[in-house]
């Protein structure tokens, strides 16, 4: 049983920093223009299919990333091809990047404006450079008049702009990187966080001496896990669990999808400390009875690490399970219902107080 009092007492110690207090999306996926103001620490997003829930998470992820490569990862998590064929023609280049733009219209600038609670505004944008060049090698060549303009990903923060470009040349596609500005983690609905990534994050947590706290949080739902360690599995580092009644240590993914996901979320929150955790379809993989403790663990971890959360869910069971955690902490929650109106994705925002009342009253608000 989740104790709201315990959570409230842990809330006393957390710092007030929020990575995103307001957000504006322009020309991104299904959003021509979307604004969110007054974002609290926990933002729970609901809504029907194709209403822009995942796209909202993706916009935040890209704005927090350090390379256009993040957009390719999003494609893969969406279920588009894991591998892409790079060809030096404009149409295939557009197929790869064009779906980031509103209705695929690449001629307009795509940008995301973010405000945080301390450092002020920052901007992330994607534009095609107006100039492009094509080098034709000496000798007879077929004339290809289509010049592929480079795509620029720009991060503007504190008056400093970082630019990473995507360019096509005869050698292939060149994707730039910039120093990461804001920590963010994306837990996709379809993509399982790699054992290597989880092991790396756990190692950092262990080195910081936080492994016992972490184990306690995990044990609140899975008490049969007696210990965690990093071991090699087929030559790759992975987190193994010491399990009650089992002599041999077991790799976490083999214990169950829900356990692996919960561990991935908690480690992701630690990794994104001071930043933002983006969780798509929170409920996937969890046994219904463990959902209140999952909420409790996520909220507690975020409060302790000063991390903000934007998460989506379709599940009323999952939303109801949040109630014990929300009660007494209503001002740290918001409910965002994405709706589709006249071909655009539009948010309706409700306070944590309204959200809690709606769950109590069994109102259908999804």
């Amino acid at each position, binding site marked *: 049983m989740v104790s709201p009092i315990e959570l409230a007492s842990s809330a006393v110690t957390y710092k007030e920093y929020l990575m995103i207090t307001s957000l504006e999306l322009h020309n991104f996926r299904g959003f021509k223009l979307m604004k969110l103001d007054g974002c609290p620490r926990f933002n729970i997003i609901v809504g029907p299919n194709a209403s822009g829930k995942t796209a909202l998470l993706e916009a935040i992820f890209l704005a927090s990333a350090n390379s256009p490569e993040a957009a390719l990862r999003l494609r893969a998590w969406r279920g588009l091809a894991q591998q892409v064929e790079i060809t030096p023609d404009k149409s295939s280049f557009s197929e790869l990047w064009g779906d980031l733009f509103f209705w695929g219209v690449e001629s307009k600038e795509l940008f995301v404006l973010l405000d945080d609670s301390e450092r002020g505004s920052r901007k992330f944008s994607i534009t095609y450079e107006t100039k492009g060049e094509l080098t034709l090698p000496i000798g007879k060549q077929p004339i290809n008049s289509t010049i592929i303009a480079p795509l620029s990903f720009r991060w503007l923060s504190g008056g400093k702009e970082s630019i990473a470009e995507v360019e096509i040349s005869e050698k292939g596609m060149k994707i730039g990187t910039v120093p990461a500005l804001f920590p963010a983690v994306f837990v996709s609905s379809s993509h399982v966080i790699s054992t290597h990534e989880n092991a790396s994050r756990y190692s950092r947590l262990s080195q910081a001496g936080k492994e016992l706290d972490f184990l306690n949080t995990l044990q609140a739902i899975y008490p049969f896990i007696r210990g965690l360690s990093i071991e090699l599995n087929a030559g790759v580092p992975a987190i193994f669990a010491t399990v009650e009644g089992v002599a041999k240590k077991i790799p976490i993914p083999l214990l169950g999808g829900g356990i692996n996901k919960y561990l991935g979320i908690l480690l992701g929150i630690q990794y994104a400390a001071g930043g933002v955790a983006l969780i798509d379809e929170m409920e996937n993989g969890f046994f219904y009875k463990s959902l209140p403790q999952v909420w409790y663990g996520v909220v507690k971890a975020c409060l302790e690490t000063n991390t903000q959360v934007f998460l989506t869910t379709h599940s009323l069971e999952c939303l109801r399970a949040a109630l014990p955690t929300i009660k007494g902490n209503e001002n740290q929650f918001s*409910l965002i*219902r994405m709706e589709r109106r006249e071909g655009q994705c539009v948010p*309706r925002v*409700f306070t944590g*107080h*309204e*959200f809690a*009342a*709606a769950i*109590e*009253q*069994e*109102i*259908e*608000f*999804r």
Partner: protein
Amino acid sequence: MAEDPIVLCEGNDDAAFFTQLIRFRELRSLDVRAPTREDHAGHSGFGRRMVALKTETDIENTPAIIIVRDCNADPGSAFRSLVVQIRESGGYGVPDAPRRLARSQGRMLPPICVLMLPWDNQPGALETLCYESAAARRPEIAECVDSYVRCVQFDIEAWGTVKHDKFRLRCLLSAACPSEPNTALRYAWSGDKGRPTDLVPLGHRCFDEIANFLAGFDRTLEARF
């Protein structure tokens, strides 16, 4: 798509009454709602329920919300206390009198209308009307109930007319329904378990004002906007 006005009732008894009245009088369809939680029932629970309703999908397409509450001993005070709850729930229009429609501030919330029972400024409750109807149908039992009230020395001065009406209705329902003497008002129209279907006849004239109000509610909506 929400097209019916929502009727928010204090509890299950009045929700059953409105559902059956609509059916019996062939009134326009209404979305009658009882509280889903015991601690949000009664006249003090409307505020929390109004807060929750703001989140409901398609609430902006609901033509209106009709809040039904009992006048009890002091109709003015009962209305004012409801107005406070509506105001504090935030964003809704606040009616200045019973049966007057108040437009909500934004376009996303429906207008609000308050219906007081037994009627605008009359002390009493739903049971006041139901007892009148039930007693008219079974005057012989009503006479015995009145004797019983005297016999047990029910103190109307101390307990008030509303409790007097509830007491009498409780006795009459039990006497008229020997197969289920603990029949609650909400089951008075169910007809099951040997219950007579005419325990509280809904055709009685005492319900005419309510029925007329609901029948004419579409005109109220049109006139207001």
